[in-house]
């Protein structure tokens, strides 16, 4: 940076310093090209053709509730997703009802979900189906906690890519206490649970 300036102080023949300047400039240009090329080359060795998206690792998630409040979107891109094939279709759903409810009905005061995003519908005795209304879900994870504690853990949080803006730096990933928000290849997209896993202690 400095060398191309220093020599100009010496009063030299007209014509001569320009040549020297050009020489230095070309040297710097070559250096710049080389450094760009080497940085690019090195990162290319660690690159992949796919793009990265943010996703929640359901096995790491501790349902702290920060997803609901930290996402840059007003209503978080984190949504509860229901893996139906894992669900026990219980009447007493730990994800739907507040603990120690008196009547197992859809009364608002019985529901764990603060936004009434979890819907309950009767299938046949004694089974009930639970569906998530993603428009209403704010990703607080209360139902996930309940379902994981008392049930099969079929409800879990995922980032909905229809809503997510895929920020280069996910705001939630910085506050997640469990480092559960990770970058995954966009082809994969989701980290859905496949089977029942016992929660850690």
């Amino acid at each position, binding site marked *: 940076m400095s060398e191309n300036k220093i020599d100009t102080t010496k009063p030299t023949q007209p014509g001569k310093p320009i040549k020297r300047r050009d020489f230095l400039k070309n040297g710097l240009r070559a250096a710049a090209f080389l450094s760009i090329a080497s940085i690019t080359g090195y*990162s290319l060795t*660690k690159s992949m053709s796919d793009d990265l998206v943010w996703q929640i690792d359901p096995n790491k998630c501790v349902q702290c509730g920060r997803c609901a409040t930290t996402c*840059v979107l007003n209503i978080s891109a984190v949504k509860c997703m229901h893996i139906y*094939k894992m*669900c026990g279709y219980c009447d007493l759903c730990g994800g739907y009802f507040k603990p120690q409810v008196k009547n197992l009905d859809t009364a608002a005061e019985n529901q764990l979900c603060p936004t009434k995003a979890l819907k309950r519908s009767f299938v046949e005795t004694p089974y009930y189906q639970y569906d998530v209304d993603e428009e209403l879900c704010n990703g607080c994870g209360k139902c996930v906690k309940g379902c994981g504690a008392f049930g099969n853990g079929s409800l879990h949080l995922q980032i909905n890519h229809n809503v997510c803006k*895929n920020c280069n730096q996910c705001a939630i990933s910085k506050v997640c206490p469990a480092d559960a928000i990770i970058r995954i290849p966009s082809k994969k997209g989701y980290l*859905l649970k496949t089977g029942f896993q016992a929660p850690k202690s």
Partner: protein
Amino acid sequence: MAKLKYILSSFLLTVIYQLGNAQRFPAPEFESGHIPPKTQTIAPRGLGWEYLDVIVLFLALSIMTWFVLKKRSRKGIFWTSIFSIVYFGIIRVGCVCSVGSIGNVTLSLFQADYVIPVTVIAFFVLPLIFTLLFGRTFCAGVCFMGAVQDLVNIKPVSLPSWISKPLSAIPYIYLTLALLLAASGADFIICRYDPFIGFFRMNAPFGMLVFGAAILILGIFVGRPYCRFLCPYGVLLSWMSKISFWHTTITPTACIQCKLCDSSCPIDAIDKPVNMNTETDGKGRNRLISLIILLPLFIFLGGFLSSLLYKPLSTIHPTVKLAEEIKWETENNKKTESEESKTFHASGIQISQLFTDAGHVQTIFYAGTWLGGSLLGLFFGISLLRTSVVRRQTDYEPNRGNCVSCGKCYKYCPVQKQVAEVSPKTDGV
């Protein structure tokens, strides 16, 4: 007693879980033939789009360069920047952008397990190469952040150099900090503190909205405040631009010294001619020599002073932050009851392991602050050197490093008007 209960119950629970690793409630077999619905997920934006973005970036850079160097058309530059705002800002919602890609590239250089998408590398490299060839045509308006600030700058005010010179040191500090935090895997601060992204997402934390609005309001009067006094990518681009093969000029042919462009630049990036007849006494040379001798001292001081900050800086890293918390807990024999602490205790990771990891991160910060600080000291020394160097200049010329090729000075040049009249092909806006 409570502890014993806790241990017992957790032991019992573990046993139960070990036994019942199968589903607690088996999936029912419906008599009514009810078929459980499938979980619906919407796939992320297709990969084809990411590659289209790179192609659009390349085309936008090419068109912008053509407008800047060949057509010398402010109108063309203006409409290209509107296109950038619409495509990169509104349609793509800003991520990933070249400015933020610094973080990704740095992380890929320093973290073994981070795999960087090729498209992000392209976003990082393309503007650098274009700038090395043609000057900062990326800044002119392909960068949607620059374009937005260019749009709002309707009442440009010239800043005195005693304000703008010290402020222009901030991007260097910001870049150093961003590199350090990205390399250690702590955070991408460039992305997090991007003031304009919130407007494109139509959603942002309140503080960032205020910051963005403040920069835009300031930008009405002060040309491109983010580009000049914050943008870390601008530092890299200004280096490239200083040695670029081609660069835009104020006048299409020869400067006639009319001084009409004197105050036309909204970002004060026009270098005025220097009186060549000034006698050079020994003073300047002596100062230059003493500054060169002092340069190693600046480098050392920069490194030393920055390294004093490594501890507080390292607490930005989540591992160090957690380790500090756990350390506090063990010293005071209390639990902080924070989510981090609870999660850590539940994870079963050894405290010694955490401390080792945190120590490793702190070593990176110690080395990083020394290195970054030394570089800052070097840049400081060089900028002092430059003030002692005789500048040879006879014409009004754009400052290679600072000029963003926005083309606002073109219309002030009477030669440009003349050329435009002679050949109607050139758009002399």
